[in-house]
């Protein structure tokens, strides 16, 4: 079976086109086989609705009188990039408000504009002969702008990592709230409905392809940033007219203690031009595989705990090292279905025609890591030796040790030299002042925050700040104490680095 895009568009025009969603196609191919399904179906619609940080809008505000060449501009206190022409600016979804922080960001401005609300525009400038004005304060709606063109550098991830947390503290990430001790697993992506998973060879999805973006027609500009098709992590750069979009499909979001992002509804129609394309659109959740990673390791490469399919993830429970762990999604499968269904109805009712790509998107290649000219020092490069004390010793003996070693922190270890707690000179002096000499155990802190020798120094700084503490014992895999890093030591190191 072969058909062309022109033939499909002809059928859309005369109303005889047969469109199914990618979910329906999977079932259809299972029932009828590839060739029969390919014969019957002209178009398969896909859809996804997830948090897509790499999104934003180009605005043209129109010229004021006297005119201003904006040097910096804010919309509701969220700064937009205006290092382009006088009254053009790009507002990114993750830019945070200067005053409200993580509660309000670029995505919220975009959503407010879609709701028809007025936003407050403030701009400053240095003033020129042709653009004398130095400041402007006004309020503006979407209708008042000349253009509001969404350009999203990276959308529609083919699939994404699933996340869990192997540490003993809750962490807040762009993969949502991750409960301690593998308390949950989160994932993202529409699986069976994911646009790129339904055309992994980029046979029909290419530069110029007309798509559904935010409830309006949009287009693919090129491959997305960080496009990594070889590993099955392709992405797309897309554009569309914000003025035509619907708030239902563009939603502002905040990931707690991470920042703002934007949920984008995106759908791509896949013309069934031959059996191979039909076969690709028959992909099921069971065939899309990703990895579960430990997000408590804040490094570029995180440990992978296991491989998992979207079918398993969607079942609500997966097995992690013998433990049943609850899973839930961050992207909305309910809304992804809405996107695929709405795109299907547009095509059926003759409102949306398919386009041939003008250029292909790379099918191979993967993302390179950043070139770093200065290697980040590791904990093992900066840690210092520390005295320890065995559990069972008394407060008085701890005091003696602290005085001898002139250290404010004294890790407490068991018989096998494994870390079980920590006491500070403050704990010890307080106990002695209250004449509570005796066993050390009651006054020590048991829940010790630690680092490993291979961790980057940045992590230590972040932990010290986050937990408001002044030192971190360095331990190996068996919890044996190797040394200590202190806030004081790190600041000396950092200031030395600055002076150099």
């Amino acid at each position, binding site marked *: 079976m072969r058909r062309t895009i022109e033939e499909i568009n002809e059928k859309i025009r005369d109303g005889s086109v047969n469109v199914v969603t990618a979910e329906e196609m999977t079932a259809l191919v299972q029932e009828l086989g590839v060739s029969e399904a390919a014969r019957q179906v002209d178009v398969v619609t896909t859809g996804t609705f997830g948090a897509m940080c790499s999104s934003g809008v180009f605005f043209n505000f129109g010229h004021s009188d006297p005119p201003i060449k904006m040097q910096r501009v804010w919309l509701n206190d969220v700064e937009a990039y205006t290092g382009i022409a006088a009254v053009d600016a790009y507002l990114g979804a993750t830019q945070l408000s200067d005053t409200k922080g993580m509660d309000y960001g670029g995505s919220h401005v975009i959503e407010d504009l879609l709701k028809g609300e007025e936003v407050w525009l403030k701009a400053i400038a240095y003033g020129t002969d042709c653009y004398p004005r130095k400041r402007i304060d006004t309020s503006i709606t979407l209708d008042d702008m000349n253009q509001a063109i969404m350009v999203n550098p990276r959308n529609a991830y083919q699939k994404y990592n699933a996340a869990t947390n192997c540490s003993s503290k809750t962490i807040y990430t762009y993969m949502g709230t991750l409960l301690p001790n593998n308390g949950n697993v989160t994932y993202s992506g529409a699986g069976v409905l994911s646009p790129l998973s339904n055309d992994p060879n980029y046979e029909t999805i290419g530069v110029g392809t007309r798509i559904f973006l935010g409830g309006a027609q949009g287009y693919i500009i090129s491959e997305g940033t960080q496009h990594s098709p070889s590993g099955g992590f392709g992405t797309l750069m897309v554009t569309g007219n914000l003025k035509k979009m619907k708030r239902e499909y563009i939603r502002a979001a905040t990931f707690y203690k991470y920042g703002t992002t934007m949920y984008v509804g995106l759908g791509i129609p896949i013309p069934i031009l031959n059996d191979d394309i039909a076969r690709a659109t028959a992909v099921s959740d069971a065939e899309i595989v990703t990895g579960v990673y430990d997000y408590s390791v804040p490094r570029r490469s995180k440990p992978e705990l296991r491989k998992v399919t979207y079918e398993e993830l969607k079942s609500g429970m997966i097995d992690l090292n013998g433990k049943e762990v*609850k899973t839930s999604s961050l992207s909305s499968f309910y809304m992804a279905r809405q996107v695929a269904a709405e795109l299907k109805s547009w095509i059926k009712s003759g409102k949306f025609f398919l386009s041939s790509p003008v250029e292909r998107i790379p099918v191979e290649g993967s993302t390179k890591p950043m070139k770093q000219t200065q290697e980040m020092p590791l904990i093992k490069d900066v840690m210092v030796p520390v005295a320890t004390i065995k559990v069972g010793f008394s407060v008085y003996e701890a005091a003696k040790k602290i005085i001898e070693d002139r250290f404010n922190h004294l890790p407490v270890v068991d018989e096998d030299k494994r870390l079980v707690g920590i006491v500070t000179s403050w704990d010890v002096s307080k106990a002695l002042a209250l004449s509570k000499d005796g066993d050390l155990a009651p006054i020590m802190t048991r829940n010790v925050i630690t680092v490993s020798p291979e961790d980057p120094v940045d992590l230590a700084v972040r932990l010290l700040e986050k937990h408001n503490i002044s030192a971190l014992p360095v331990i190996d895999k068996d919890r044996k104490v190797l040394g200590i890093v202190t806030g004081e030591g790190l600041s000396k190191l950092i200031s030395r680095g600055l002076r150099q």
Partner: protein
Amino acid sequence: MKLLLRFNSEIIKKPIIAEAVLETGVKLEIERARVEGPQGEIVVNVPDDSCREVVNVLKRKKVEVTRLDVPITKDEENCIHCGACVSACPVGAIRYEYDWRVRMDEKLCVQCGNCVNACPVRVIKLPEY
């Protein structure tokens, strides 16, 4: 009335409960207390007629106050049914329906507050006083 009091790291070391008792003269009965890292939570029982007064004093001292007699709410109209709240709930009070909509069963909720922060579009609210 039962109230959930949350203390952030800035105020956790201050003797706020004692001060509140002294300033209002109202007896506060502490039901449970939990300190995790730099944050703390206390559940107190307050006589109904002096509740407002106590809450005002606590709020002035920057304590986050939640009523525990009113159930948690989820704004169905603005929920995007992502499910970010589902696995964050320790008691399974939030679940996907057959059609992938997300539903909350208020009766099972123990008001831990996990889902409030987990929700990216902020549509779950614990009743604020």
